[in-house]
């Protein structure tokens, strides 16, 4: 490519990112935000947000232009999670989880079936959910009990007991981890795509959690029969290390940062209002706000450096750095640090606002922010990740 063509391509990419982010910010402000209270109170799916995101073709943002997608950068999608998180944590989480599934397919694209499938996602704005956790594995995503059983006519089937399936009832398609075959070891996993007509979801239990209530994530028994071509060709351990785990931790941490940032903004608005009421007099909460800014800045720095390291490692041919144990430690730590810091910022914001932050019906309410971010430490339990990291620290050299 000539220098001029390079410059034109870069300008086109920057324009696409800018247009995408302008649309997402508008949706966050005009749709996700106004419905956030209702979504939270009723633990209902944020359908308005998803409709609006579909109308802007945001569900195919990460899909390359040549497959009919938006050709938007990963950086812009991460920023979109942050922007949605500022207005509605559940909308942001559904959007983020969908993008994690898309990224896992796009970054390991190796079959005509999945190229055609991505074209369909773009054309129809299909929403993809994931079934990675499983009852009986102790929270270890690297092991499965459910296995693909070969059927007649080249089809395969599986049954999986999932402790949670986020927005499963609202998704068009599912990506599920299973063992490759009935006699495969627990770690010998593949990812399989299933369309809603190939799946039955039998709900187990109800969905009345503390936070992230709009993600509608009850447990399910998932049963499916599918053609073998819907198995992703790349083994799951590779997809997991190079894409699913780092992308999850980066997009989640961006939306947690978004929630914490809105909590901080509310605390700041509270302090400004107090200062305006009594001009010239000291506002005790202002000092607490300054402490809170330090906490928010630490969170922002960790989230930002995690993204930059992932982007630079993703640019290398073959992405060798992403499959190292040092990278696993890095992106695991991003998840742990961000999931602990985000609720800390929200709690600090509530401390600044006092009773009007505690109440659910004021412009300074922090309750939903605090509850939503408290889910962060158990979306893949931090203690489970610490166990993994403790083992990796025995052998990794530079961390």
């Amino acid at each position, binding site marked *: 490519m000539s220098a001029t063509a390079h410059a034109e391509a870069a300008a086109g990419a920057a324009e696409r990112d800018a247009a995408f982010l302008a649309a997402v910010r508008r949706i966050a402000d005009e749709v996700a935000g106004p419905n956030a209270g209702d979504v939270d109170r009723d633990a209902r799916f944020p359908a308005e947000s998803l409709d609006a995101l579909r109308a802007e073709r945001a569900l195919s943002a990460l899909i390359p232009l040549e497959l009919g997608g938006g050709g938007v950068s990963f950086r812009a999608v991460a920023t979109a999670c942050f922007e949605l998180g500022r207005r509605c944590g559940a909308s942001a989480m559904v959007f983020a989880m969908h993008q994690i599934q898309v990224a896992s397919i796009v970054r390991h694209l190796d079959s005509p079936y999945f190229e055609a499938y991505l074209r369909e996602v773009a054309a129809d704005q299909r929403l993809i959910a994931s079934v990675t956790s499983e009852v009986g594995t102790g929270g270890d995503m*690297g*092991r499965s009990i459910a296995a693909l059983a070969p059927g007649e006519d080249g089809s395969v089937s599986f049954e999986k007991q999932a402790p949670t399936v986020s927005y499963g009832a609202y998704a068009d398609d599912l990506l599920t981890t299973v063992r490759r075959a009935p006699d*495969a*070891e*627990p*770690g*010998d996993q593949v990812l399989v795509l299933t369309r809603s007509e190939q799946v039955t979801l039998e709900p187990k239990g109800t969905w009345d959690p503390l936070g992230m209530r709009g993600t509608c994530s009850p447990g399910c028994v998932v049963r499916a029969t599918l053609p073998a071509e819907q198995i992703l060709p790349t083994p799951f*351990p*590779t997809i997991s*290390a190079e894409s699913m785990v780092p992308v999850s931790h980066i997009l989640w941490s961006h939306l947690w940062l978004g929630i914490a940032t809105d909590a901080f903004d509310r605390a700041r608005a509270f302090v400004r209002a107090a200062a305006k009421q009594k001009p010239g007099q000291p506002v005790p909460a202002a000092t607490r706000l300054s402490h809170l800014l330090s906490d928010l800045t630490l969170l922002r720095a960790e989230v930002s450096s995690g993204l930059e390291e992932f982007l630079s490692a993703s640019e290398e041919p073959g992405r*060798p*750095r992403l*499959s*190292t*144990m*040092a990278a696993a430690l890095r992106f695991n730590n991003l998840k742990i640090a961000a999931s602990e810091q985000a609720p800390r910022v929200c709690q600090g914001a509530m401390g600044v606002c006092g009773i009007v932050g505690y109440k659910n019906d004021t412009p300074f309410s922090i309750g939903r922010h605090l509850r939503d971010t408290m889910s962060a430490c158990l979306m893949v339990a931090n203690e489970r990740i610490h166990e*993994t990291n403790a*083992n*990796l620290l*025995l*052998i*990794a*050299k*530079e961390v």
Partner: protein
Amino acid sequence: MTDEIRQIISEHGRLAVDVASLSDDADLYQAGMTSHASVGLMLALEDAFEVEFPDAMLKRSVFESIAAIAEALETLQKQAA
């Protein structure tokens, strides 16, 4: 070298099958080695062969078979020589 590697795998790899039944190219992860067990194997290999695997080598593909482990150890021993 591969005999010694096989011995260390039998002690630390926690495979679901007897290591003697595996070829040098067989996938150790498919034979049941977990990520957790692989770290124990790496530590034992560093100890036995008096090497240190740099971070760039500490990845799944380097430890996925007896042949891959032997190649990695040879690379490190050449560098040390």
